[in-house]
């Protein structure tokens, strides 16, 4: 039962012969990864521009689109990827002037505010209405600000409550990340095959995201929503909501939203805010999870905040609240435009 200790025994092997291959194997992989990431530079973190980036920075792309608009938008749709499919044309039926969809990937509270300030202050957009789709995750205390927001300098300047490492530190840390290495390999593979990677999303001129491949699958009858939902049933709470570390709404991010509402109040921008919907199948999973008890707390904190500003926050997190159709989803959180139209009707119906 005694703890065994063989440390003093003599061994017949040659230590140098032993450690050399280990170090070579270890070093070779890391050196290759660093070299590959520096050369391919898939996230535009380093100086090389030999290859196209892995993905277009949507915050940048949409900013450039607004820059190119002769008539700057009067209404903005701001939120995460969950609002990206919302059609601005439909909004224009309820609200006067031009509307632009500035939905961003993995946007949290600080990105909402930064996007608004970027378009109002840098582009002089005469914004009168803001449609703000808020995710529960937008108030997560532990999730970092999306790298797209941090790597695009005009956007980064307005990130009020970002505590992420500096770009230089991140560039260094990411030199050895598996995510970047995988992206580098993907870019390299596509380049060798001389095939441009088909974008998952295409953007319309008004910023609305078009899920081209999925729409094609729907048209061809190949789209199987139930299979997608089943596969992601448990992943959503764990990966997207990060429930295990979601203990309370982030005070820092709540403050950020508070500043956004004050900003809107000072500039007479009308805020039409709502909690973004989640597919009923996901709510079924969430209901059984003790860790999901944080969600009502987040809702309460948001309601208190909006009430303080004399505003209403519409809770559309359950689709029944706006007459949504459970079949009109692309996956557990992303709705098809037809459902977005229903949501807009419920949100802005009184405005017409």
């Amino acid at each position, binding site marked *: *039962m005694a703890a065994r200790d063989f440390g003093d025994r003599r*061994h017949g092997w040659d230590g140098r012969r032993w450690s050399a291959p280990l170090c070579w194997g270890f070093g070779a992989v890391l050196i290759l990864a660093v070299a590959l990431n520096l050369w391919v530079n898939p996230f535009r973190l380093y100086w090389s521009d030999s290859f196209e980036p892995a993905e277009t920075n949507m915050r940048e792309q949409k900013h450039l689109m607004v820059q190119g608009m002769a008539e700057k938008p009067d209404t903005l749709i701001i939120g995460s990827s969950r609002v990206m499919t919302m059609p601005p044309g439909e909004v224009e039926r309820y609200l006067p002037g031009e509307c632009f969809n500035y939905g961003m990937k993995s946007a949290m509270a600080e990105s909402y505010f930064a996007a608004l300030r970027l378009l109002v202050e840098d582009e002089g957009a005469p914004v009168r209405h803001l449609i703000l789709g808020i995710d529960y995750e937008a108030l997560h205390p532990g999730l970092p600000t999306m790298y797209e927001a941090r790597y695009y300098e005009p956007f980064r300047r307005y990130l009020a409550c970002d505590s992420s490492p500096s770009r230089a530190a991140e560039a260094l840390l990411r030199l050895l990340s*598996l995510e970047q290495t995988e992206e580098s390999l993907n870019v390299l593979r596509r380049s060798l095959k001389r095939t441009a990677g088909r974008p998952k999303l295409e953007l319309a001129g008004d910023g609305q995201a078009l899920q081209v491949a999925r729409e094609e699958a729907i048209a061809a009858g190949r789209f199987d929503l139930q299979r997608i939902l089943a596969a992601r049933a448990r992943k959503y709470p764990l990966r997207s909501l990060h429930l295990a570390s979601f203990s309370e709404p982030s005070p820092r991010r709540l403050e950020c939203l508070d500043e956004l509402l004050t900003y809107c109040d000072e500039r007479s921008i009308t805020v039409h805010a709502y909690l973004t919907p989640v597919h009923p199948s996901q709510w079924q999973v969430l209901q059984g999870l003790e860790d999901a008890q944080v969600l009502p707390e987040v809702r309460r904190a948001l309601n208190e905040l909006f009430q303080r500003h004399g505003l209403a926050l519409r809770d559309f997190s359950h689709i029944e609240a706006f007459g949504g159709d459970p079949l009109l989803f692309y996956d557990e959180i992303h709705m098809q435009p037809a459902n977005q139209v229903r949501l807009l009707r419920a949100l802005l119906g009184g405005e017409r």
Partner: protein
Amino acid sequence: MLFHSQVFIFLFAPLAITLYWLLPKRLRLGWLALASYFFYGWWDWRFCFVMLLTTFVDFICGQKIGAATSARARKGWLALSLLVDLGLLGFFKYAAFTAGTVNALLEAAGGAPRLPLLEIVLPVGISFYTFQSLSYTIDVYNGRVKPTRSFIHYMAFVSLFPQLVAGPIVRYKQLGGQLLSLPERLTSRNLSLGLTFFAAGLVKKVLIADRLAYFTDQLWLDWRHLLPAEAWSAALGFSLQLYFDFAGYSLMAIGLGYLLGLSLPQNFNSPYRASDVADFWRRWHISLSTWLRDYLFLRIGGLTVRGRWPALVLTMLLTGLWHGAAWTFVLWGGYHGLLLLVHHGLRHFGIKWRGGWTGSFGTLLLVILGWVLFRAETLPSAMHVLKSMLSLGGLGLGGAVAPAFIAIIVLALLWAIFAPNLYELIHVRQAQPRTWALACLGVLAAVCVMLASESGPFLYYQF
């Protein structure tokens, strides 16, 4: 700071170890203590003072016990050491649990004033370094070791960063002498052993335990809806995750020890190959089980015929409580106490647990059932999962388990049961690893470093 983080692998460890060897011998212990406190303070510097208090009190108590001429004085100093060490451990780890339990009992008795439920942050590794430091004063008291005269030496012993936060729990007798006579230089033997153990631990932690965690966490999050196949996967997945996580950490700790010219004891000896429950406890977390055997079981009547069995059950209940302040852990300890009681009882009446593969398989099954109590956050969730595993809910054998999860479980199970462990390979079989195998280990370790940002902390950090 986690062993598998890039900051540890590329900054802290190379710097701490290189400077350790470059410094004159008389400065090395000071550097080791300083580096260890920095390592510990990286998580929360305030708790360095808690560790320093334990270290200081036990150092003084050790000296006083050694110098005391009367038995009463010796006992008094030992009592002070026990009071401070167990008091700190009790406050940080068990205050909220005790208050909660007392409140529940008072409420059940008809309602009475409630004790305040303090939200106390548990200092990482407090259970490990407290036991380590405590063993010193007890050993000094029993005359097994002589008290050290150097506070720096004692600081280095308690705070030694390779095994500070999750063991192995090293006795002063095992390490004190090594720290007093540090080797002149890093030998190629220690370098290669250190790198190999560290790389193997890294692979166990990042490539196996964390991959298993990805799937098992999802299942445990949704414990209410687990169908039998999913419940079995959750239990089996966690059993393997815990083993690979903790054994991986221990290997890394031992590897770092070699890189500092120190020899730390083996903490795992292929426990899932155990032929019976007693054998399991000779192979699982060896440094803790031997600690509890020597400082608890044998002290509370384990040597006497009448006291042996109650002592066994009490030791196992406290083993459970050591792991965490929750009734699920106590129940887990009690469950193992009961298994050991049955095992020894059967032997007492001349009935032997069947050996060979059937014996090992039966033992593994019993251990896996026990891990459900260990993993579950509440008793109802543990009971629900166990019920589902035993198909008592009338749910059939349904449930969808990801093929990738099944593949990792099978691979990990085969590894845990059939593959020789590193100690066995290197120290018993004295195997000469092939060059390509070492290069592969290096490649896998590099992949682990790249995966590190997605990896979680070690499970045993919370204990």
